[in-house]
């Protein structure tokens, strides 16, 4: 091998490897690492949304009959409690508007940023407010409540370097975990959840056929009344404005 050819090959390889390395490093930087959650949001959730009730209609659009808890993995204790429900009992009208149940109700959402690290979800029906905290630091103990305490983060594929291949990190959805819940209803007919409940939600945004959609998948885990995680996904469609916003308190 001549000095020229040796130098040429070594230089070529070094350049290619350097290029490969630089290429990989350029893609490993986390997107928007320096910004606030509002700045790094992969999609804009703010605005008005309406529930689109194409599933579970008979349990969501009307108050189901007592004992109609089909589809819900209630355990014996949960069924026993559900069977004690009476339709007109005072003080229970808001129980289905707690975080595990409210997103299943036929209502509209108004979503805004309360501050750069807190997303606010308001409902017109039931007039509830959920605060999704992207920064859980400094949280003080709070008594259990209908909406509990929600921590949020933008998540997705974390990316990573693999053999010769670097995968670009990509945020794709909002993950929300809610605890500190007061007991409430999963359905209007008294299907219960307890204060031990942990609610995990995933917010996915998608555009299809000219419409902007939000699908919220919720996983309710309640060792007191459920034999398995209760998984549902609720769909919302973006509204052009707030003209149909119709605040109605729960009673």
């Amino acid at each position, binding site marked *: 091998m001549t000095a020229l050819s040796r130098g040429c090959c070594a230089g070529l390889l070094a350049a290619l490897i350097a290029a490969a390395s630089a290429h990989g490093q350029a893609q490993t930087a986390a997107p928007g690492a320096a910004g606030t959650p509002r700045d790094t949001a992969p999609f804009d959730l703010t605005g008005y949304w309406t529930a689109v009730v194409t599933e579970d*209609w008979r349990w969501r659009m009307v108050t189901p009959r007592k004992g109609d808890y089909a589809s819900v993995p209630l355990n014996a204790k949960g069924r026993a409690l559900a069977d004690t429900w009476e339709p007109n009992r005072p003080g229970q009208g808001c129980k289905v508007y707690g975080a595990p149940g409210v997103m299943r109700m036929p*209502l509209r959402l108004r979503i805004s940023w309360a501050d750069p690290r807190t997303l606010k979800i308001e409902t017109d029906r039931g007039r509830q407010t959920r605060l999704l905290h992207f920064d859980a630091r400094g949280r003080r103990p709070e008594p259990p409540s209908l909406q509990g305490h929600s921590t949020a983060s933008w998540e997705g594929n974390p990316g990573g370097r693999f053999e010769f291949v670097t*995968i670009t990190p990509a945020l794709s959805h909002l993950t929300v975990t809610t605890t500190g819940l007061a007991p409430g209803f999963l359905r209007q007919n008294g299907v219960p959840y307890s204060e031990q409940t942990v609610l995990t939600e995933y917010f996915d945004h998608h555009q*299809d056929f000219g419409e902007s*959609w939000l*699908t919220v998948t919720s996983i309710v885990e309640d060792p007191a009344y459920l034999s398995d995680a209760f998984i549902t*996904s609720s769909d919302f469609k973006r509204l052009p404005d707030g003209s149909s916003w119709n605040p109605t308190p729960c009673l």
Partner: protein
Amino acid sequence: MSTRRARPHRVAVVAIHLTAVVAIHLAAAGSASAETDLSGEWTPRYHEDLPERIPGPALGEYHGIPLNEAARRRAESWSASILSVLEHQCVPHPADYATRGPSHMRIWKEVDRDTQQLVAVRMRISAWGTERAIWMDGRAHPPPYAAHTWQGFSTGVWNGNVLTVTTTHLKPGWIRRNGVPRSETAVLREHFIRRGTHLTHISVIDDPAFLTEPFIRSQNWVLSPYQVIAPYPCDPAEENAQPRHTVPHYLPGQNPYLREYAEQQRLPLEGVAGGARTMYPEFVEGKDLRRTAAAPLAGSASATTGRGNVSVVHVQGNVHMVHTPDGNMTVHAGEDGLLLVDTLGADRAAEIHAAIAPLSASPIRYIVNTHAHESHTGGNGALAERGRTIYGGNATNGVNRDAMGASARILAHENTLLAMTSAGRASRDLPTDAFFSERKDLFFNREGVHIAHLPAAHTSGDSLVYFRRSDVISTGDVFRTHEFPFIDADAGGTVQGVINALNAIIDLAIPGPLQEGGTMIVPGRGRLSDESDVVDYRDMVVIVRDRIRDGIEKGLSLPQIQAARPTLGYDWQFGRSRTDWTGEHFVAAVYRDLTRTTR
């Protein structure tokens, strides 16, 4: 010396190889996005709509569906007894419904062995064992005239870690398995989202035929590595004593079961009846809903091939379909030459010949006419003159064999010859060989070709052509995928003859597994089909005929029957063709036919 000379060469080869390797890896790194591996065994969670999804929906349970008037008519006409009809028994859940029924699911990746690039995401669903491919390699969707399947044609792209899938070419199916229909023009958009051991599937259907706006649903699975998906064989079997070719259905207003569900569940009938207004908060607020028009999907509009387009599609075996905007013809090609079923219009003959001549080194030998109409026989003379006939034996002794064989033979039923003669058609277009029996057989390109007369169907001279080894039936105009049957009463056509012809095709065809593929059908107009498409068409003709007959029996006049819209539910599929033959024409033709035969 030779060794010393070889070393730089080897080093150069190594360098080139390494360069290629690094380049490939660079390319791979450049193309790698945040894809998630969806592979695994997934068990559904039926925490939503359990009664609808597992036992099955009730009759009349349409709440939450933005169905339109046509869909409602179809749904209310639907009888569960249709599921016992042989041709319906093994129809699987189509792609848009498969994830709603019993849906234990397996997902796996198909990667190219050399490049390790993802070619397809494949999945199998437990019910009916349906499998589908989601093509990830950037291939285009087929043309509109390609065959449609239960699972359709799907392409996918990654948006972050979300697999977004677009599916077209679905056979007519259902939104809910209680008769709420979904048309073949629908486009299905899906999003598959994996988060650890949890999978969410969002599906949105845009079907302007039957839905007033896009319809969204979402389902959930959990990873179950030990799941076993059992086989799901299906063989049609006679289940009851109903006569062959019965099409169970309810006439408008006569379905007695539509209120049962609402009454049993104590639900408002207004809500159970469905429609977009039942999907939104306004329904419980008692307000009128502002309707939102469904926006068309960019690029999903049915691509119309402009005039002058001639497309040749290989069907199977020796058979090809020639598709044009004005109709189809069939070409049987092999070492013996070409056999054409119909020739379309004379103005297309040169274009058609240029498209089909490469299919065989030998010329056109035979033309078979399925009926007399000029739309299918106009090119007879022009194409026959581009072919040759083989003569032999004593018949040709002493004559000029070249002159005698200077044109292909044209075969047709004698009623077709008579009709063409009566119409004053040019002699060059007329059949050279007419048959008067119920069938005529040929052996060509090492294959049996069976021509069967279909009496008094859309004309008196209709024939089908069955290529036995290739397993393809060419139907002529008794079957048109996007038009109501044209019943040419002046030429001896009858509605019962059309139904008989369609049943004859169904009897002759043998479908593949899950009522798909197997014998392929080339319609007189429209897209490539199989038996289930003919069944769908036959069911439509019978149901509309029965609605008209019911009106006649009630003493209604033709205008009164037309006002009742007996084709409602089928107009989108069959009443939007580029011909002048509308649903009203079809109703009038059936009315005249039935009143003539019942007098």
